[in-house]
């Protein structure tokens, strides 16, 4: 017997993500899903973003890692509520993990939630977490050819942060080629060159984000 299903494979995740999106909108919380490789400076970028925006907005952070709570501790040391999700081996976050983390946060009080996804340029791109925007971070030492190798993550991102620009003098990174490749995959995504640990360029990125948080 044949049964016609025509059912999205990620139906369960997508429905849960839609519920979360509704909940975020109701509470006027803007949610960012940060995608990047391990070691690209996700946590440093989050810390720099917090520093730039904390006077105006209440911020919460959800940290996704395979193991440990190292990152969440770094955030909570800054007096920012942080929830650690340990995926225990899984290479990406899913909506049900976010739901559990969100249940711990005081949504009514928050304006911005930054989700630090598991360090991976592939798997997280396929999963809706109910976020307002996926943002991609690439760091200079990873190389300017990454848009050619991992087009998916550049396509789904609403903005691209190029981190560790202070290392440009020592790496053979062609900024122009990188910008062209990103533009060809995603013509509307702005690129923000920053050096998160030095604070360089963070203001432009923070202004772009602040504008969106105010509209949430």
């Amino acid at each position, binding site marked *: *017997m044949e049964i*016609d299903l025509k059912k999205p494979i990620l139906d369960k995740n997508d429905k849960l993500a839609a519920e979360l999106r509704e909940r975020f909108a109701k509470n006027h919380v803007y949610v960012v899903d940060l995608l990047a490789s391990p070691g690209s400076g996700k946590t440093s970028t989050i810390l720099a973003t917090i520093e730039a925006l904390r006077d105006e907005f209440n911020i919460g952070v959800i940290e996704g890692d395979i193991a440990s709570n190292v990152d969440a501790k770094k955030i909570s040391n800054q007096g920012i509520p942080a929830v650690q999700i340990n995926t225990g081996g*899984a*290479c990406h976050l*899913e909506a049900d993990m976010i739901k559990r983390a969100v249940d711990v946060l005081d949504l009514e009080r928050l304006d911005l939630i930054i989700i630090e996804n598991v360090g991976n340029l592939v798997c997280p791109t396929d999963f809706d977490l109910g976020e307002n925007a996926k943002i991609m971070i690439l760091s200079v030492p990873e190389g300017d050819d990454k848009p050619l190798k991992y087009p998916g993550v550049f396509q789904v991102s609403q903005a691209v942060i190029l981190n560790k620009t202070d290392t440009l003098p020592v790496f053979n990174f062609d900024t122009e080629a990188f910008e062209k490749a990103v533009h060809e995959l995603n013509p509307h995504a702005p690129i923000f060159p920053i050096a998160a640990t030095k604070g360089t360029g963070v203001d432009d990125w923070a202004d772009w984000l602040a504008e969106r948080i105010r509209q949430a």
Partner: protein
Amino acid sequence: MHEMGIISGVIDAVTASAQAAGATKVDKITLSIGEMTEVIMDCLTFAFEALSEGTMCEGAELKVNIVKPHSICLECSTEFDHDRFHLACPNCGSYETVLLEGREMTIDGIEVDVPTEGDDGADPSADGEASESMPTSDGDAAASGQTAGRTAPSADSPASCDERNPAPSACRDVPSPEPSAEPTL
């Protein structure tokens, strides 16, 4: 290696539908996967073999239709096929394009064994009515595998190797246990 998560979703959904239809076994599962997703076919097959063991999907054929990317240009309205990397309009060169097809992840349909009344499915070809519970002929299978639009059915093998990433080494990870969410503040 999110193919484990994807396949466990497939098995859950298929099992629920098959049970609702009174089936005892799933013979075939047809999926449509867009080329613009990050799904690797080898990993999908590997995950299916590993996770279907002991379920009613064990031994079922997994047919995967690869959906080629297809976009429309917002400048000149040309519709065109392309690959994962070259999204510019072939007519006017614009990058202002919108993907119409190519990000699908869908369970199109399944074929199941439903035991007939008083027969327990022992010999489903015994009467005309029961013949429906037999795995369909090649012709029927091909028809059920087609989806609207520009679906390009894969080869007859259960799931063809994805050319863009043939390395099966990506299939090393294991499905996660229950993730934990702990507040640290």
